[in-house]
């Protein structure tokens, strides 16, 4: 088995799940985003989104900041440095695997 194929088993399972991959990708392109933006962009239900965000938070990949905008509670999520490196590594591993596959 080539080293590139072995990378497939090394893919980060927290990020590899499609909904979480989308959330991490969205957050990687911005400084932070609120719950409503992630809800609209991911097209997940509120419950599903909350579960995936909790899993990412538990893994230390994102952090939440609760504030108020006027009188409304407002939660912003941002990718942590651990989350950024995990996402970069995930992309590298995936590219390596796909590179072998496309040959």
């Amino acid at each position, binding site marked *: 088995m080539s080293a590139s194929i072995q990378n497939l088993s090394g893919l980060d399972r927290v990020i590899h799940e499609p909904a979480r991959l989308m959330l991490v990708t969205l957050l*990687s*392109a*911005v*400084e932070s*985003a609120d719950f409503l933006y992630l809800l609209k962009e991911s097209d997940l239900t509120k419950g599903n989104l909350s579960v995936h965000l909790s899993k990412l938070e538990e893994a230390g990949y994102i952090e939440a900041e609760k504030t108020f905008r006027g009188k409304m509670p407002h939660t912003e999520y941002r990718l942590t440095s651990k989350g950024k490196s995990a996402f970069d590594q995930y*992309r590298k591993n995936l590219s390596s695997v796909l590179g072998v596959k496309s040959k």
Partner: protein
Amino acid sequence: MQTHVQIDSVLKRARGYWFVDGFTEIAAGVFFILLAGILLLQGNMFQASNPSHFLSVVGVISLVKLFGFLVTVLVLWWLKDNFTYPRTGFVRGNRLTAAQVLTLLRNAILFLLLPIFGLLTVSVLLATVGGVLSFMPVWFPIGVGTIWAVLCILAGEWTGVVRFRVLGILFLLAGLAVGIWQWTVGLSVFPADVRPALNQPAVQEVINRGLSGLGVLVLISGLPLVISGLVTFLQYRKANPTPYVEEA
């Protein structure tokens, strides 16, 4: 490869969120149209009797640009805060690092200095400022249109917003059209022997034509911006008619 393409498209979508409502294009377009009005007014009324008068015109235009930009940014923030964020959410753009700010500043300075150095070099070679001025009305709009086109197409590539590429092509065509128009009315494409004194009728004519040409370019670039912004805004409003409300 499919997963990779999806990651890229999601990244671009997040980067392009600032432009999702069309407000930026409407604001930029209105700003362009106001600026065009000032340029056309100056081009038609300005009598370059002395260099200080010419400099005062440049000063007025610079001040209008600065204040116009600040007002546009404030209006945009207000609109997004009251219309866009309650409908599709709030996003904070990536902060620039000190190194990125320095690189941007360096590039901006180079961007401004290069044409000036080019102009000075040509001036030295031709030994007359008027000689350089004489072909500016033809080449300046073409240069400005090309720069806007490149910036717009790059922004389109970065954000995945297709309409930016269309706008880029329109800017390029607008610059070319104004340049060709200036040429067809008899302005020189190559340096002509015009004396540098600003009070000479030939130089006055060249400056007025230059300002008018730039005004027309800014105007015909502003109109598609407003139209594109309005269409985007209407589509956005149709997709998100009311602010998001928490379900009970």
